[in-house]
């Protein structure tokens, strides 16, 4: 349908091309339809690898994200959880071994190897290279970038899901394969409600559950 005025037609054609371009790019890192952050994969202050810890080393999700069982927010583990291991583990084993052998060959004391990412944790806790409190540094909490973020008017609670036996991977994807955490799934209301309707019919892991589809389940 052509319009009466040629100028309007030109504008509309340009607009159409632009929108096609933008929609084509919707899976790119930067531009999205408002509210849909699927594929969001932000750079974190410390390049923590879930692939190494959860995948290779097999640490269970709830070891660190213990909040998922007890409280509404799963939470990102506080630094003292990391330090449970990293008080002793300061670098990959291979590097430490290599330094030990080199030191023995050179007949000197082995230097403590600290990988650069772990240095960031120690700095946030104001620890020096010897892992002792640094006299002049101030401890600063680590500001992680939230990947799975729902709007403020949604009161999502992890507890009923964890207690019902829903696997973390159902919503968060195969985190144990991710080097950097990425949002899998669009976290829209329809996405949540569909799963609720599904499990009311089919259960979770062959266990009968009841997931309410009341508005006040999440919105209050």
């Amino acid at each position: 349908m052509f319009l009466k005025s040629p100028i309007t037609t030109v504008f509309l054609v340009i607009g159409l091309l632009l929108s096609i371009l933008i929609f084509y790019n919707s899976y790119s890192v930067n531009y999205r339809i408002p509210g849909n952050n699927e594929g969001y994969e932000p750079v974190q202050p410390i390049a923590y690898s879930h692939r190494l810890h959860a995948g290779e080393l097999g640490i269970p999700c709830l070891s660190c994200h213990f909040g998922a069982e007890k409280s509404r927010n799963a939470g990102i583990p506080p630094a003292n959880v990391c330090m449970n291991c990293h008080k002793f583990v300061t670098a990959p084993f291979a590097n430490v071994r290599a330094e030990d052998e080199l030191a023995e060959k050179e007949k000197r004391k082995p230097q403590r190897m600290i990988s650069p990412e772990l240095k960031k944790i120690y700095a946030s806790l104001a620890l020096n290279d010897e892992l002792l409190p640094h006299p002049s540094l101030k401890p600063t909490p680590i500001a992680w970038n939230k990947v799975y973020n729902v709007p403020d008017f949604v009161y999502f609670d992890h507890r009923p899901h964890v207690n019902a036996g829903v696997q973390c991977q159902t919503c968060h994807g195969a985190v144990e394969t991710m080097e950097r955490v990425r949002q899998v799934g669009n976290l829209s209301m329809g996405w949540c409600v569909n799963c609720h309707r599904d499990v009311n019919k089919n259960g979770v892991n062959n266990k009968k559950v009841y997931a309410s589809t009341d508005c006040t389940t999440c919105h209050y």
Partner: protein
Amino acid sequence: MSEYHHVKFEREQENIPHRGIDRRDFLKLSGFTFAGAFLAGCQAPSVDKAIPFLVKPEEVTPGLSSFYATTCGGCNASCGIITKNRDGRPIKIEGNPSHPISQGGLCAVGQAHILGLYDSQRLKNPVLFGKETSWEHVDTTLKTKLEEIKKGSGAVRFLSSTISSSAQRNVIAKFLSGFSDAKHIEYDALSVSAILDAHERTHGNRILPHYHFDQAEVIVALDADFLGTWISPVEFTKDYRKGKILNGNSSKFSFHVQVEANVSLTGSNADMRISLSPNAYKNFFHALASSIEGGNSSLPNVNELAAKLRSAKSKSLVVCGVNDIDLQVLTNSINHLLGNYGSTIDIEKPSKQYRGNDSELEHLFSEINDGKVSALFVYNCNPVYDIPNGNFLGKQMEKIPLSVSFSERNDETSGVTQCICPEHHSLESWNESEICAGVFSLSQPVLQPLGNTRSLTESLNSWMNVRQTAYETIRSEWQHSVFKRQNKENDFQKFWDTSVHDGFAEVEAGENIVQEFSKQSLQNISPSNIATDLALVLYPKISIRDGKHAHNPWLQELPDPITKIVWDNYVSISKKTAERFGIGENDVVEITAHISSVKRMVKLPAHIQQGMCDNVVAVALGYGRKGTERFTNIGPEWFEAEPTVKQGEFVGKNVAEFLQWANGNISYIVMQCSVAKTNEQYRLAATQEYHSLQMPKHLVSSDAERRPIIQETTFASYIKNNSAGSFPKHAYASMWGEEHPYNNHHWGMAIDLTKCTGCSACVIGCQSENNIPCVGKDEIARNREMTWIRIDRYFHEEENKFSVAFQPMMCHHCNNAPCETVCPVLATVHNEEGLNQQIYNRCVGTRYCSNNCPYKVRRFNWFDYEHGDEMHKLVLNPDVVVRERGVMEKCSFCIQRIQEAKIVAKRNGVVLHDGEIQPACQQSCPANAIVFGDMNDTHSELSQRMNDPRFYKALEEIGTRPAVGYMTLVRNSDEVRNV
């Protein structure tokens, strides 16, 4: 034919001038522009940070609340409270259910005083000569000055309100012992010093008795607002309710008579209310005393009362709230005649909540006048504001060489002292108090002090060069004295830990020597007052009390239970007296009185009050406080807005200048005053301006039914027929087919109107829990108050008989909700557990739902209601959304609490049991009037209440099928007086 049409059409097309774009093109363009704008909204996702603890404390889990027991600092009653902490700070206060005195209840002031913690008007540093400074500087300056005073001969005086903590008293005594002439004087702004003085005369010991209202079958109260503001209102409400149990055949119901001039909360709940002018009080009590002894009085009602009291010997209670020693001695003698001492009045285990000594204060006043005082310390009181002739005291105080205040803010008194050493808020301090003999209440800090404040104990210790914190002082005091008064626990550490955990400790009462009632005390009573023309009564409001909480917007906006007026004080006057002076509602009147030969005047708006005694006017204390000029900006800013208080002015007027000394006590009654109408008008904002449920006679025929809102009956009728007073039940057909299915829970609520006193603690509890904003006086005047629960009160006045009914109203969560059917976007729908849910993010602000609600319980956010003070945001509950402009809100039955309880129960694998979910209103109610529960659970307390014959639903005939029901209001009176 078609030819003709074709030609006509063509011609029309030619003749229409082409104005640029035509309609269809315009729509196409705007549609596409809209789509373009939408796409332009595409953006990078907003970056939210998640910042965990560095080292997580073991007991804190983000998202979960921790609870600590401590003591309320709202007034002297020291009720036990539990604070709900989130992120290291308290956000909600609830009553402590195991506390022996307050038994889980909490009044409006207790609920609201958490807001006083997050107040930017609180001093953050000590102040010396008007400038903020450091503690070191203050300590060195003061220590030098104190050394100088020790060498001189001047007097050192420590003025405070009642301190019932022996740890604190010992530190003060130790501090004062370093001076040759030093004294600690206590006074209370709402003084009951006359009761203590009277007991000194009659029983040889200056004590305040512990009243037991639950043991009394007949209660006579002379101007004592014991359910509202007098001494220990939460405890008295709980006990009073124990004396009124409606249980079918095993009911008991006490008989309560209130004799008063002003209409008080207690008077509204009385079974019989006698309106009496203050100058007739003495005659009344004289007559009552002689009638009890067998005489016959000519005064109305006295003989019947005396007969009732005689029939309940040692099970009656006569109390007097007038601070006059003669009246108190008379009260003691009446109680003695009735044998009440030892049963309803306990003087062997007395109350220690109020110890103020007005005559010592009067003596101090004259000492300051004569310049004998070299150093004055003022703690937890505001004498320049609230004692007789306080302004003059303020001027005299400037001459004292050293004056130190421990106030938390720059108030009337601390503004004239040289040094302010701000104390912690009660929620930030270690403290303890002996509430009644043998019952100790402990306070622990529930957060780190927000400012650089220091507790009184530590300040005094520092000036004595003693290094001991408040915690250590209290702990050692307990180890040496309190711990030794019990023998259940042998290990002090265990005893201490249990006490801190519980918030209180019960130990042996200790010695208290009292003598037999001394008849000689009656000889000193001065003769009765002469009749006067117009008396003035000064009373504390249930929200503001003595003015300590005037800076708290929640309390300022809490409608007075009787008048429903907010944000101001005013002159209450009866209709007849108003006509006498030609005064109408909202007219500004000038009250003049001669107080100690000084003429005092104040201009205040008038309010016609039903039930008020003729020839008496009443004004509330606690207003006109410095610091309330901050409320100029409260409320939305728009072109028609009027400020709550004019720039630089205070909220209300201070009427403390009408107080005077009488026989060594502060008198709150002025026997002779005059009232004159001025030409000004002042609009008072009230949330309820209609007073009765009766239909106006000129509008309806004589046999029209009353609106079925409040059912009332008398106790006598109830005993004969348990469903007395019920409205006729209509059977109505329903248009709706099946009911909503409730397979799991079906939440409901039952409110017992006999229990509700109207104290409004539920209103503040709800406001605190659900982040409800304050809107300012102008918005209230436009009927835009935001509180989700309101307490309707209705009057009935007929000749000398006056009755009041209170009815809390919140969203009834109707099964056939009129609001649900009319929402165009389905923002309000019914959930599968019976709640009417309001989804804020879906609401577009049509307001059709509010239009349709018959109970008018929906609240609309007309504006973005700002908090006046940024720090107030720290009290917001993170479990509840803060609503934006344009969104409708209403009571949600505290859905956040329901969800939390359900999830925790599911996680623990247990079934939810009754009483686990308590909405904020139920939790704060001191009278247990509100009960929430599951209708599907036949054993729940709610189901029991619903099966009670007294249960009914408001406006049932409309067919809304609400989930909230009420229970008939039963009064122990002769006849029903329908409001």
